[in-house]
Protein backbone atom coordinates (compact mmCIF):
# COMPACT_ATOMS: atom_id res chain seq x y z
CA UNK A 1 0.00 0.00 0.00
CA UNK A 2 1.36 3.35 -1.04
CA UNK A 3 1.00 6.28 1.31
CA UNK A 4 -0.45 9.07 -0.75
CA UNK A 5 1.59 12.19 -0.95
CA UNK A 6 0.37 15.53 -2.25
CA UNK A 7 2.62 18.04 -4.00
CA UNK A 8 1.97 21.08 -6.10
CA UNK A 9 3.14 21.62 -9.64
CA UNK A 10 2.96 25.36 -10.44
CA UNK A 11 1.86 26.28 -13.98
CA UNK A 12 5.25 27.73 -14.88
CA UNK A 13 6.90 24.33 -14.28
CA UNK A 14 4.27 22.28 -16.06
CA UNK A 15 6.00 22.14 -19.41
CA UNK A 16 9.34 21.21 -17.92
CA UNK A 17 7.66 18.49 -15.90
CA UNK A 18 5.94 17.21 -19.03
CA UNK A 19 9.21 17.11 -20.95
CA UNK A 20 10.92 15.27 -18.09
CA UNK A 21 8.46 12.40 -18.52
CA UNK A 22 10.17 11.37 -21.75
CA UNK A 23 13.02 9.86 -19.81
CA UNK A 24 10.57 7.26 -18.42
CA UNK A 25 9.28 6.18 -21.80
CA UNK A 26 7.54 7.29 -24.96
CA UNK A 27 4.76 9.66 -24.00
CA UNK A 28 1.20 9.12 -25.24
CA UNK A 29 -1.56 11.62 -24.52
CA UNK A 30 -5.03 12.59 -25.73
CA UNK A 31 -4.88 14.50 -29.00
CA UNK A 32 -7.75 15.96 -30.99
CA UNK A 33 -8.27 14.28 -34.36
CA UNK A 34 -11.17 15.71 -36.29
CA UNK A 35 -14.13 15.46 -33.94
CA UNK A 36 -12.73 12.77 -31.68
CA UNK A 37 -9.84 12.39 -29.29
CA UNK A 38 -7.25 9.64 -29.44
CA UNK A 39 -4.27 8.64 -27.34
CA UNK A 40 -1.32 9.38 -29.63
CA UNK A 41 2.39 9.71 -29.32
CA UNK A 42 3.25 13.30 -28.43
CA UNK A 43 6.47 15.26 -28.30
CA UNK A 44 5.32 18.59 -26.95
CA UNK A 45 2.78 19.68 -24.37
CA UNK A 46 1.15 21.88 -27.01
CA UNK A 47 -0.14 18.79 -28.85
CA UNK A 48 -2.03 17.52 -25.80
CA UNK A 49 -5.75 18.24 -25.36
CA UNK A 50 -5.79 18.75 -21.61
CA UNK A 51 -9.53 19.43 -21.58
CA UNK A 52 -10.55 16.42 -23.63
CA UNK A 53 -13.82 14.70 -22.83
CA UNK A 54 -13.00 11.09 -23.68
CA UNK A 55 -10.93 9.35 -26.31
CA UNK A 56 -12.88 7.15 -28.71
CA UNK A 57 -10.74 4.09 -27.91
CA UNK A 58 -9.91 3.85 -24.22
CA UNK A 59 -6.33 3.41 -22.93
CA UNK A 60 -7.07 -0.32 -23.00
CA UNK A 61 -5.63 -0.16 -26.50
CA UNK A 62 -2.09 -0.05 -25.10
CA UNK A 63 -2.48 -3.28 -23.15
CA UNK A 64 -4.94 -5.28 -25.23
CA UNK A 65 -4.37 -3.88 -28.68
CA UNK A 66 -7.20 -3.61 -31.21
CA UNK A 67 -5.14 -5.83 -33.50
CA UNK A 68 -2.18 -7.61 -32.01
CA UNK A 69 0.22 -10.06 -33.64
CA UNK A 70 1.04 -12.65 -31.01
CA UNK A 71 2.78 -15.46 -32.85
CA UNK A 72 4.57 -16.08 -36.11
CA UNK A 73 4.68 -19.41 -37.91
CA UNK A 74 8.17 -19.94 -39.26
CA UNK A 75 9.73 -23.18 -40.51
CA UNK A 76 6.73 -25.06 -39.20
CA UNK A 77 7.08 -23.65 -35.67
CA UNK A 78 5.24 -20.91 -33.83
CA UNK A 79 7.49 -18.16 -32.54
CA UNK A 80 6.33 -15.69 -29.96
CA UNK A 81 6.39 -11.99 -30.76
CA UNK A 82 6.64 -10.01 -27.58
CA UNK A 83 8.33 -6.67 -27.74
CA UNK A 84 7.60 -4.39 -24.84
CA UNK A 85 8.39 -0.71 -24.81
CA UNK A 86 8.37 1.64 -21.89
CA UNK A 87 5.55 4.13 -22.21
CA UNK A 88 4.00 6.96 -20.25
CA UNK A 89 0.25 7.44 -20.56
CA UNK A 90 -0.32 11.07 -19.80
CA UNK A 91 -3.76 12.47 -19.05
CA UNK A 92 -5.84 9.41 -18.16
CA UNK A 93 -9.25 10.11 -16.63
CA UNK A 94 -10.40 8.49 -13.43
CA UNK A 95 -13.04 6.28 -15.11
CA UNK A 96 -10.40 4.84 -17.44
CA UNK A 97 -8.07 4.10 -14.53
CA UNK A 98 -10.96 2.15 -13.00
CA UNK A 99 -11.49 0.48 -16.36
CA UNK A 100 -7.91 -0.76 -16.36
CA UNK A 101 -8.38 -2.18 -12.89
CA UNK A 102 -11.37 -4.17 -14.11
CA UNK A 103 -9.23 -5.49 -16.95
CA UNK A 104 -6.48 -6.36 -14.46
CA UNK A 105 -8.86 -8.70 -12.67
CA UNK A 106 -9.38 -10.58 -15.91
CA UNK A 107 -5.96 -10.48 -17.53
CA UNK A 108 -3.71 -10.65 -14.46
CA UNK A 109 -5.55 -13.38 -12.59
CA UNK A 110 -4.74 -16.97 -13.36
CA UNK A 111 -4.17 -17.68 -16.21
CA UNK A 112 -2.12 -14.51 -16.56
CA UNK A 113 -2.04 -12.93 -20.00
CA UNK A 114 1.71 -12.44 -20.51
CA UNK A 115 1.27 -9.74 -23.16
CA UNK A 116 -1.02 -7.69 -20.98
CA UNK A 117 1.14 -8.15 -17.90
CA UNK A 118 4.38 -7.08 -19.59
CA UNK A 119 2.78 -3.97 -21.05
CA UNK A 120 1.09 -3.06 -17.81
CA UNK A 121 4.37 -3.35 -15.92
CA UNK A 122 6.15 -1.11 -18.38
CA UNK A 123 3.62 1.69 -18.38
CA UNK A 124 3.47 4.78 -16.23
CA UNK A 125 0.01 6.22 -15.75
CA UNK A 126 -0.50 9.89 -15.13
CA UNK A 127 -4.09 10.76 -14.37
CA UNK A 128 -5.72 14.11 -14.96
CA UNK A 129 -8.87 15.70 -13.56
CA UNK A 130 -11.87 16.34 -15.81
CA UNK A 131 -15.33 17.90 -16.05
CA UNK A 132 -18.24 15.67 -17.06
CA UNK A 133 -20.14 16.17 -20.30
CA UNK A 134 -23.66 14.99 -21.11
CA UNK A 135 -22.58 11.34 -21.46
CA UNK A 136 -20.65 10.82 -18.21
CA UNK A 137 -22.20 8.91 -15.31
CA UNK A 138 -19.09 7.70 -13.50
CA UNK A 139 -20.19 9.40 -10.29
CA UNK A 140 -23.13 7.00 -9.98
CA UNK A 141 -20.71 4.10 -10.10
CA UNK A 142 -18.09 5.59 -7.79
CA UNK A 143 -15.48 5.59 -10.54
CA UNK A 144 -15.20 9.39 -10.72
CA UNK A 145 -12.28 9.38 -8.35
CA UNK A 146 -9.26 7.07 -8.41
CA UNK A 147 -7.60 6.13 -5.15
CA UNK A 148 -5.06 3.88 -6.83
CA UNK A 149 -4.15 2.52 -10.22
CA UNK A 150 -1.99 5.52 -11.19
CA UNK A 151 1.54 6.71 -10.60
CA UNK A 152 0.70 10.40 -10.49
CA UNK A 153 -2.66 12.15 -10.68
CA UNK A 154 -2.89 15.82 -11.66
CA UNK A 155 -5.78 17.91 -10.36
CA UNK A 156 -6.36 21.25 -11.97
CA UNK A 157 -5.80 24.32 -9.80
CA UNK A 158 -6.16 27.95 -10.89
CA UNK A 159 -2.37 28.34 -10.87
CA UNK A 160 -1.08 24.84 -11.52
CA UNK A 161 -1.77 21.28 -10.49
CA UNK A 162 -2.27 19.46 -7.26
CA UNK A 163 -0.42 16.20 -7.78
CA UNK A 164 -1.29 13.02 -5.95
CA UNK A 165 1.49 10.47 -5.86
CA UNK A 166 0.09 6.96 -6.09
CA UNK A 167 2.94 4.49 -6.52
CA UNK A 168 6.61 3.83 -5.93
CA UNK A 169 7.29 4.88 -9.52
CA UNK A 170 5.28 8.01 -8.88
CA UNK A 171 7.42 8.81 -5.87
CA UNK A 172 10.50 8.28 -7.99
CA UNK A 173 9.26 10.69 -10.66
CA UNK A 174 8.36 13.26 -8.02
CA UNK A 175 11.71 12.82 -6.34
CA UNK A 176 13.75 13.21 -9.55
CA UNK A 177 11.74 16.35 -10.35
CA UNK A 178 11.84 17.64 -6.77
CA UNK A 179 12.88 21.14 -7.84
CA UNK A 180 9.71 21.55 -9.95
CA UNK A 181 7.32 20.90 -7.07
CA UNK A 182 6.20 22.96 -4.13
CA UNK A 183 4.41 22.12 -0.93
CA UNK A 184 0.64 22.13 -1.03
CA UNK A 185 -0.91 25.10 0.81
CA UNK A 186 -4.26 25.40 2.56
CA UNK A 187 -5.43 27.52 -0.35
CA UNK A 188 -4.51 24.83 -2.86
CA UNK A 189 -6.56 22.32 -0.91
CA UNK A 190 -9.44 24.76 -0.85
CA UNK A 191 -9.24 25.13 -4.63
CA UNK A 192 -8.99 21.37 -5.04
CA UNK A 193 -12.16 20.92 -2.98
CA UNK A 194 -13.96 23.65 -4.90
CA UNK A 195 -13.07 22.00 -8.17
CA UNK A 196 -14.34 18.63 -6.97
CA UNK A 197 -17.57 20.16 -5.69
CA UNK A 198 -18.20 22.00 -8.92
CA UNK A 199 -17.46 18.82 -10.81
CA UNK A 200 -19.72 16.77 -8.61
CA UNK A 201 -22.59 19.16 -9.26
CA UNK A 202 -22.03 19.10 -13.04
CA UNK A 203 -23.15 15.52 -13.69
CA UNK A 204 -26.24 15.42 -15.86
CA UNK A 205 -26.61 11.69 -16.08
CA UNK A 206 -27.22 9.39 -13.15
CA UNK A 207 -27.52 5.64 -13.03
CA UNK A 208 -29.73 4.15 -10.37
CA UNK A 209 -27.49 1.40 -9.05
CA UNK A 210 -29.91 0.39 -6.32
CA UNK A 211 -30.63 -3.33 -6.63
CA UNK A 212 -29.56 -3.28 -10.26
CA UNK A 213 -28.58 -6.94 -10.24
CA UNK A 214 -31.87 -8.06 -8.66
CA UNK A 215 -33.75 -5.87 -11.05
CA UNK A 216 -32.02 -7.49 -14.03
CA UNK A 217 -32.74 -10.89 -12.51
CA UNK A 218 -36.45 -10.18 -12.83
CA UNK A 219 -36.28 -8.38 -16.14
CA UNK A 220 -34.95 -11.08 -18.42
CA UNK A 221 -38.18 -11.12 -20.45
CA UNK A 222 -38.79 -7.40 -20.28
CA UNK A 223 -40.55 -5.93 -23.32
CA UNK A 224 -37.94 -3.15 -23.23
CA UNK A 225 -35.29 -5.47 -24.64
CA UNK A 226 -37.62 -6.33 -27.49
CA UNK A 227 -38.19 -2.69 -28.28
CA UNK A 228 -34.47 -2.00 -28.42
CA UNK A 229 -33.79 -5.05 -30.53
CA UNK A 230 -35.56 -3.23 -33.34
CA UNK A 231 -33.48 -0.06 -32.95
CA UNK A 232 -30.07 -1.64 -32.33
CA UNK A 233 -28.00 -2.17 -35.46
CA UNK A 234 -25.92 -4.91 -33.90
CA UNK A 235 -22.90 -2.99 -35.14
CA UNK A 236 -20.75 -3.62 -32.07
CA UNK A 237 -19.52 -0.03 -31.80
CA UNK A 238 -20.51 0.01 -28.11
CA UNK A 239 -18.23 -2.95 -27.42
CA UNK A 240 -15.32 -1.67 -29.46
CA UNK A 241 -15.10 1.59 -27.51
CA UNK A 242 -15.77 0.16 -24.04
CA UNK A 243 -12.88 0.28 -21.54
CA UNK A 244 -14.13 -2.87 -19.82
CA UNK A 245 -15.04 -5.12 -22.76
CA UNK A 246 -12.72 -8.07 -22.64
CA UNK A 247 -13.68 -10.30 -25.56
CA UNK A 248 -11.24 -11.03 -28.32
CA UNK A 249 -11.03 -13.16 -31.43
CA UNK A 250 -7.92 -14.97 -32.63
CA UNK A 251 -7.25 -15.40 -36.36
CA UNK A 252 -4.40 -16.77 -38.46
CA UNK A 253 -3.21 -15.01 -41.61
CA UNK A 254 -0.82 -16.23 -44.25
CA UNK A 255 1.99 -13.82 -44.99
CA UNK A 256 3.47 -16.03 -47.68
CA UNK A 257 3.09 -19.61 -48.88
CA UNK A 258 4.59 -21.14 -45.75
CA UNK A 259 4.57 -18.47 -43.06
CA UNK A 260 1.66 -17.13 -41.07
CA UNK A 261 0.88 -14.85 -38.15
CA UNK A 262 -1.60 -15.34 -35.33
CA UNK A 263 -3.44 -12.12 -34.60
CA UNK A 264 -5.92 -11.32 -31.88
CA UNK A 265 -8.38 -8.51 -32.22
CA UNK A 266 -11.26 -7.08 -30.24
CA UNK A 267 -14.46 -9.01 -30.62
CA UNK A 268 -18.02 -8.00 -29.91
CA UNK A 269 -20.85 -10.00 -28.38
CA UNK A 270 -23.21 -8.36 -30.89
CA UNK A 271 -21.77 -10.59 -33.61
CA UNK A 272 -23.82 -13.60 -34.52
CA UNK A 273 -21.01 -16.12 -34.03
CA UNK A 274 -19.99 -14.80 -30.61
CA UNK A 275 -22.24 -17.33 -28.91
CA UNK A 276 -21.61 -20.12 -31.40
CA UNK A 277 -20.05 -23.24 -29.93
CA UNK A 278 -18.94 -26.62 -31.22
CA UNK A 279 -21.79 -28.66 -32.61
CA UNK A 280 -23.40 -25.60 -34.12
CA UNK A 281 -25.32 -24.52 -31.02
CA UNK A 282 -25.62 -20.78 -30.50
CA UNK A 283 -26.56 -19.68 -27.01
CA UNK A 284 -27.35 -16.12 -28.15
CA UNK A 285 -28.97 -16.69 -31.52
CA UNK A 286 -30.97 -13.47 -31.90
CA UNK A 287 -30.16 -9.77 -31.77
CA UNK A 288 -32.47 -9.56 -28.77
CA UNK A 289 -30.31 -12.09 -26.88
CA UNK A 290 -27.22 -10.18 -27.80
CA UNK A 291 -28.57 -6.74 -27.03
CA UNK A 292 -29.71 -7.87 -23.58
CA UNK A 293 -26.49 -9.73 -22.94
CA UNK A 294 -24.33 -6.60 -22.93
CA UNK A 295 -26.39 -5.10 -20.10
CA UNK A 296 -26.08 -8.28 -18.07
CA UNK A 297 -22.36 -8.43 -18.70
CA UNK A 298 -21.93 -4.83 -17.56
CA UNK A 299 -24.19 -4.83 -14.51
CA UNK A 300 -25.08 -8.31 -13.45
CA UNK A 301 -22.64 -11.16 -13.67
CA UNK A 302 -20.75 -10.46 -10.50
CA UNK A 303 -22.02 -7.30 -8.83
CA UNK A 304 -20.21 -8.23 -5.59
CA UNK A 305 -16.95 -7.65 -7.44
CA UNK A 306 -18.18 -4.33 -8.79
CA UNK A 307 -19.90 -3.58 -12.05
CA UNK A 308 -18.20 -4.05 -15.38
CA UNK A 309 -19.06 -0.51 -16.37
CA UNK A 310 -17.26 2.64 -15.30
CA UNK A 311 -19.77 5.13 -16.68
CA UNK A 312 -17.41 6.65 -19.24
CA UNK A 313 -20.23 7.32 -21.72
CA UNK A 314 -18.40 5.99 -24.77
CA UNK A 315 -21.09 3.49 -25.70
CA UNK A 316 -23.63 6.33 -25.83
CA UNK A 317 -21.44 8.78 -27.69
CA UNK A 318 -20.54 6.29 -30.41
CA UNK A 319 -23.81 4.41 -30.86
CA UNK A 320 -25.13 5.29 -34.33
CA UNK A 321 -28.67 4.49 -33.11
CA UNK A 322 -28.27 6.88 -30.15
CA UNK A 323 -29.12 4.16 -27.65
CA UNK A 324 -28.40 5.39 -24.14
CA UNK A 325 -27.07 2.94 -21.57
CA UNK A 326 -28.66 4.57 -18.53
CA UNK A 327 -31.96 5.20 -20.28
CA UNK A 328 -32.28 1.55 -21.27
CA UNK A 329 -31.66 0.41 -17.68
CA UNK A 330 -34.12 3.01 -16.37
CA UNK A 331 -36.77 1.85 -18.80
CA UNK A 332 -36.20 -1.78 -17.88
CA UNK A 333 -36.63 -0.84 -14.22
CA UNK A 334 -39.71 1.22 -14.98
CA UNK A 335 -41.35 -1.64 -16.91
CA UNK A 336 -41.10 -3.88 -13.82
CA UNK A 337 -43.34 -1.64 -11.78
Amino acid at each position, binding site marked *: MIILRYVKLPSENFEEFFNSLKRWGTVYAPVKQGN*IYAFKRVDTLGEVSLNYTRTMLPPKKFFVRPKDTLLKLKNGRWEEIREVKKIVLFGVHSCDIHGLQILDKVYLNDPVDPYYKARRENTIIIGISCMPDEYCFCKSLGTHFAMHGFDLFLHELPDGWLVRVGSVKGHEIAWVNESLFEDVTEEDLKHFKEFEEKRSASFKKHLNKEGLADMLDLAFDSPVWKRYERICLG*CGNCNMVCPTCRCYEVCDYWINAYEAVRVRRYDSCFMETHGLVAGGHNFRPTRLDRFRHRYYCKSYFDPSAGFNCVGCGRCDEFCPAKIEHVKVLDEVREALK
Partner: protein
Amino acid sequence: MLKLGVFELTDCGGCALNILFLYDKLFDLLKFYEIKEFHMASSFKEHDHLDVAIVTGTVSSQRDLEVLKHARNYSNYLIALGTCATHGSVQGAVEGKIRDKLEKVYGTRANPMRALDSKPVVEYVAVDFALPGCPYDKMELYQLLIDLAKGIEPVKKDYPVCIECKLNEYECVLVKKGVPCLGPITLGGCNAVCIRSGLGCIGCRGPLPKEANPTSEFEILKELGYDEEYIRKKFKTFARGELRW
Protein backbone atom coordinates in the same frame (compact mmCIF):
# COMPACT_ATOMS: atom_id res chain seq x y z
CA MET B 1 -0.91 -29.25 -57.52
CA LEU B 2 -4.47 -28.07 -57.49
CA LYS B 3 -6.18 -27.08 -60.69
CA LEU B 4 -7.64 -23.57 -60.72
CA GLY B 5 -9.93 -21.88 -63.23
CA VAL B 6 -11.02 -18.25 -63.29
CA PHE B 7 -14.24 -17.51 -65.17
CA GLU B 8 -15.65 -14.13 -65.99
CA LEU B 9 -19.30 -13.41 -66.57
CA THR B 10 -20.68 -9.92 -67.17
CA ASP B 11 -18.84 -7.37 -65.05
CA CYS B 12 -16.39 -4.50 -65.35
CA GLY B 13 -13.42 -6.87 -65.37
CA GLY B 14 -12.03 -5.41 -62.17
CA CYS B 15 -12.50 -8.49 -60.03
CA ALA B 16 -10.57 -10.77 -62.39
CA LEU B 17 -7.88 -8.12 -62.85
CA ASN B 18 -7.62 -7.71 -59.07
CA ILE B 19 -6.26 -11.27 -58.88
CA LEU B 20 -3.32 -10.19 -61.03
CA PHE B 21 -2.87 -7.18 -58.78
CA LEU B 22 -1.61 -9.62 -56.14
CA TYR B 23 1.66 -9.15 -58.08
CA ASP B 24 4.47 -11.08 -56.35
CA LYS B 25 1.99 -12.67 -53.96
CA LEU B 26 0.57 -14.46 -56.98
CA PHE B 27 3.71 -16.60 -57.00
CA ASP B 28 2.81 -17.91 -53.53
CA LEU B 29 -0.45 -19.15 -54.99
CA LEU B 30 1.34 -20.72 -57.94
CA LYS B 31 3.19 -22.94 -55.47
CA PHE B 32 -0.12 -24.72 -54.90
CA TYR B 33 -2.21 -24.03 -57.98
CA GLU B 34 -1.92 -24.70 -61.70
CA ILE B 35 -3.98 -22.23 -63.72
CA LYS B 36 -6.12 -24.13 -66.21
CA GLU B 37 -8.15 -21.18 -67.41
CA PHE B 38 -7.87 -17.46 -66.78
CA HIS B 39 -8.23 -15.39 -69.91
CA MET B 40 -6.69 -12.25 -68.40
CA ALA B 41 -3.52 -14.14 -67.51
CA SER B 42 -3.06 -16.60 -70.33
CA SER B 43 -4.52 -17.84 -73.62
CA PHE B 44 -3.98 -21.38 -72.36
CA LYS B 45 -7.21 -23.18 -71.68
CA GLU B 46 -7.87 -26.75 -70.68
CA HIS B 47 -11.46 -27.80 -70.31
CA ASP B 48 -11.15 -30.41 -67.65
CA HIS B 49 -11.83 -31.11 -64.01
CA LEU B 50 -10.92 -28.26 -61.62
CA ASP B 51 -10.26 -28.31 -57.91
CA VAL B 52 -11.19 -24.68 -57.47
CA ALA B 53 -13.19 -22.45 -59.80
CA ILE B 54 -13.48 -18.71 -59.29
CA VAL B 55 -16.41 -16.98 -60.94
CA THR B 56 -16.74 -13.22 -61.19
CA GLY B 57 -19.60 -11.18 -62.60
CA THR B 58 -23.35 -11.48 -62.93
CA VAL B 59 -25.29 -13.85 -65.09
CA SER B 60 -26.52 -11.36 -67.71
CA SER B 61 -26.72 -13.49 -70.84
CA GLN B 62 -27.28 -17.05 -71.97
CA ARG B 63 -23.52 -17.30 -72.56
CA ASP B 64 -22.85 -16.34 -68.92
CA LEU B 65 -25.21 -19.02 -67.75
CA GLU B 66 -23.44 -21.66 -69.80
CA VAL B 67 -20.01 -20.59 -68.54
CA LEU B 68 -21.30 -20.69 -64.97
CA LYS B 69 -22.80 -24.15 -65.39
CA HIS B 70 -19.56 -25.39 -66.86
CA ALA B 71 -17.57 -23.92 -63.94
CA ARG B 72 -19.91 -25.51 -61.43
CA ASN B 73 -20.06 -28.91 -63.13
CA TYR B 74 -16.32 -29.18 -63.55
CA SER B 75 -15.18 -27.98 -60.14
CA ASN B 76 -15.09 -29.30 -56.57
CA TYR B 77 -15.05 -25.90 -54.93
CA LEU B 78 -16.64 -22.84 -56.43
CA ILE B 79 -15.93 -19.30 -55.24
CA ALA B 80 -18.33 -16.52 -56.17
CA LEU B 81 -15.94 -13.59 -56.24
CA GLY B 82 -16.94 -9.95 -56.05
CA THR B 83 -20.28 -8.31 -55.39
CA CYS B 84 -21.58 -8.95 -58.94
CA ALA B 85 -21.29 -12.67 -58.30
CA THR B 86 -22.51 -12.56 -54.70
CA HIS B 87 -25.22 -9.91 -54.76
CA GLY B 88 -25.79 -8.68 -58.31
CA SER B 89 -24.06 -5.34 -57.80
CA VAL B 90 -24.92 -2.30 -59.89
CA GLN B 91 -26.32 -4.06 -62.96
CA GLY B 92 -28.42 -6.27 -60.74
CA ALA B 93 -29.94 -3.15 -59.16
CA VAL B 94 -31.57 -2.07 -62.45
CA GLU B 95 -35.25 -2.88 -62.14
CA GLY B 96 -37.59 -4.07 -64.87
CA LYS B 97 -37.83 -6.91 -67.38
CA ILE B 98 -35.09 -7.47 -69.92
CA ARG B 99 -37.33 -6.95 -73.00
CA ASP B 100 -38.54 -3.61 -71.62
CA LYS B 101 -34.97 -2.54 -70.96
CA LEU B 102 -33.92 -3.55 -74.48
CA GLU B 103 -36.75 -1.52 -75.91
CA LYS B 104 -35.81 1.47 -73.86
CA VAL B 105 -32.17 1.39 -74.93
CA TYR B 106 -32.31 -0.02 -78.49
CA GLY B 107 -35.88 0.78 -79.46
CA THR B 108 -36.67 -2.85 -80.11
CA ARG B 109 -37.74 -5.81 -78.00
CA ALA B 110 -35.57 -8.16 -80.08
CA ASN B 111 -32.93 -9.96 -78.05
CA PRO B 112 -30.33 -11.32 -80.48
CA MET B 113 -27.53 -11.44 -77.87
CA ARG B 114 -29.79 -13.49 -75.62
CA ALA B 115 -29.47 -11.13 -72.67
CA LEU B 116 -30.99 -12.10 -69.31
CA ASP B 117 -31.96 -10.01 -66.32
CA SER B 118 -28.71 -9.58 -64.38
CA LYS B 119 -28.56 -11.85 -61.38
CA PRO B 120 -25.80 -12.96 -59.07
CA VAL B 121 -24.11 -16.33 -59.44
CA VAL B 122 -25.55 -17.46 -56.12
CA GLU B 123 -29.06 -17.41 -57.59
CA TYR B 124 -28.23 -20.04 -60.18
CA VAL B 125 -25.82 -22.43 -58.53
CA ALA B 126 -24.71 -23.51 -55.08
CA VAL B 127 -21.42 -21.84 -54.21
CA ASP B 128 -18.88 -23.05 -51.68
CA PHE B 129 -17.67 -19.60 -50.72
CA ALA B 130 -19.03 -16.14 -51.45
CA LEU B 131 -16.48 -13.34 -51.23
CA PRO B 132 -18.09 -9.96 -51.90
CA GLY B 133 -16.58 -6.54 -52.53
CA CYS B 134 -16.57 -4.14 -55.44
CA PRO B 135 -13.82 -4.97 -55.79
CA TYR B 136 -13.11 -7.50 -53.02
CA ASP B 137 -9.99 -7.13 -50.88
CA LYS B 138 -7.38 -9.11 -52.80
CA MET B 139 -5.67 -10.25 -49.60
CA GLU B 140 -8.89 -11.89 -48.55
CA LEU B 141 -8.80 -14.01 -51.72
CA TYR B 142 -5.14 -14.77 -51.05
CA GLN B 143 -5.97 -16.06 -47.56
CA LEU B 144 -8.87 -18.07 -48.91
CA LEU B 145 -6.85 -19.78 -51.64
CA ILE B 146 -3.96 -20.68 -49.34
CA ASP B 147 -6.38 -21.98 -46.72
CA LEU B 148 -8.00 -24.19 -49.33
CA ALA B 149 -4.63 -25.40 -50.58
CA LYS B 150 -3.66 -26.39 -47.03
CA GLY B 151 -6.96 -28.07 -46.32
CA ILE B 152 -8.04 -25.43 -43.80
CA GLU B 153 -11.72 -24.55 -43.60
CA PRO B 154 -11.86 -20.82 -44.42
CA VAL B 155 -13.56 -18.63 -41.82
CA LYS B 156 -16.42 -16.45 -42.98
CA LYS B 157 -16.56 -12.90 -41.68
CA ASP B 158 -19.46 -12.28 -39.32
CA TYR B 159 -19.06 -8.60 -38.56
CA PRO B 160 -20.01 -5.26 -40.12
CA VAL B 161 -17.62 -2.59 -41.45
CA CYS B 162 -17.93 -0.72 -38.11
CA ILE B 163 -15.76 -3.32 -36.37
CA GLU B 164 -12.79 -2.75 -38.65
CA CYS B 165 -13.47 0.98 -38.59
CA LYS B 166 -13.04 1.00 -34.81
CA LEU B 167 -10.07 -1.39 -34.87
CA ASN B 168 -8.34 1.23 -37.01
CA GLU B 169 -9.49 4.05 -34.74
CA TYR B 170 -11.11 6.02 -37.55
CA GLU B 171 -13.41 8.86 -36.60
CA CYS B 172 -17.01 7.69 -37.09
CA VAL B 173 -18.28 9.78 -40.00
CA LEU B 174 -21.89 8.81 -39.35
CA VAL B 175 -21.96 9.80 -35.69
CA LYS B 176 -19.54 12.72 -35.87
CA LYS B 177 -20.17 14.24 -39.29
CA GLY B 178 -23.62 13.06 -40.31
CA VAL B 179 -22.19 11.41 -43.44
CA PRO B 180 -24.52 8.65 -44.71
CA CYS B 181 -22.46 5.60 -43.84
CA LEU B 182 -23.78 2.09 -44.46
CA GLY B 183 -21.03 0.54 -42.32
CA PRO B 184 -23.39 -0.78 -39.61
CA ILE B 185 -25.35 -2.93 -42.08
CA THR B 186 -22.55 -3.88 -44.48
CA LEU B 187 -20.38 -6.98 -44.25
CA GLY B 188 -16.84 -6.12 -43.13
CA GLY B 189 -13.59 -7.33 -44.66
CA CYS B 190 -12.48 -4.20 -46.51
CA ASN B 191 -10.68 -2.82 -43.47
CA ALA B 192 -12.98 0.23 -43.65
CA VAL B 193 -11.04 1.80 -46.53
CA CYS B 194 -13.72 4.33 -47.41
CA ILE B 195 -13.93 5.65 -43.87
CA ARG B 196 -10.16 5.91 -43.84
CA SER B 197 -10.58 8.53 -46.56
CA GLY B 198 -13.34 10.26 -44.62
CA LEU B 199 -16.06 8.86 -46.88
CA GLY B 200 -19.15 6.97 -45.80
CA CYS B 201 -19.44 3.26 -46.59
CA ILE B 202 -21.59 2.80 -49.72
CA GLY B 203 -22.27 -0.83 -48.97
CA CYS B 204 -20.18 -2.38 -51.74
CA ARG B 205 -19.71 -5.64 -49.82
CA GLY B 206 -23.44 -6.19 -49.51
CA PRO B 207 -25.53 -6.53 -46.37
CA LEU B 208 -24.29 -8.33 -43.28
CA PRO B 209 -25.89 -11.77 -43.86
CA LYS B 210 -29.03 -12.32 -41.76
CA GLU B 211 -27.94 -9.69 -39.27
CA ALA B 212 -28.36 -6.32 -40.97
CA ASN B 213 -30.97 -4.00 -39.50
CA PRO B 214 -31.86 -1.78 -42.48
CA THR B 215 -34.97 -0.40 -40.78
CA SER B 216 -32.94 1.23 -38.07
CA GLU B 217 -30.28 2.44 -40.52
CA PHE B 218 -33.05 3.94 -42.65
CA GLU B 219 -34.46 5.81 -39.64
CA ILE B 220 -31.01 7.07 -38.65
CA LEU B 221 -30.33 8.46 -42.13
CA LYS B 222 -33.80 9.98 -42.33
CA GLU B 223 -33.21 11.65 -39.00
CA LEU B 224 -30.01 13.11 -40.43
CA GLY B 225 -32.10 14.75 -43.12
CA TYR B 226 -31.58 12.46 -46.13
CA ASP B 227 -34.69 11.88 -48.17
CA GLU B 228 -36.28 8.49 -48.52
CA GLU B 229 -35.64 8.15 -52.24
CA TYR B 230 -31.94 8.86 -51.73
CA ILE B 231 -31.68 6.27 -48.96
CA ARG B 232 -33.62 3.70 -50.96
CA LYS B 233 -31.24 4.13 -53.91
CA LYS B 234 -28.25 3.90 -51.63
CA PHE B 235 -29.49 0.66 -50.11
CA LYS B 236 -30.16 -0.79 -53.55
CA THR B 237 -26.90 0.09 -55.31
CA PHE B 238 -25.05 -3.17 -54.64
CA ALA B 239 -27.66 -5.34 -53.00
CA ARG B 240 -30.68 -5.19 -55.33
CA GLY B 241 -33.77 -5.58 -53.15
CA GLU B 242 -32.05 -7.43 -50.33
CA LEU B 243 -32.22 -4.60 -47.83
CA ARG B 244 -35.90 -4.37 -46.98
CA TRP B 245 -37.50 -2.54 -44.11
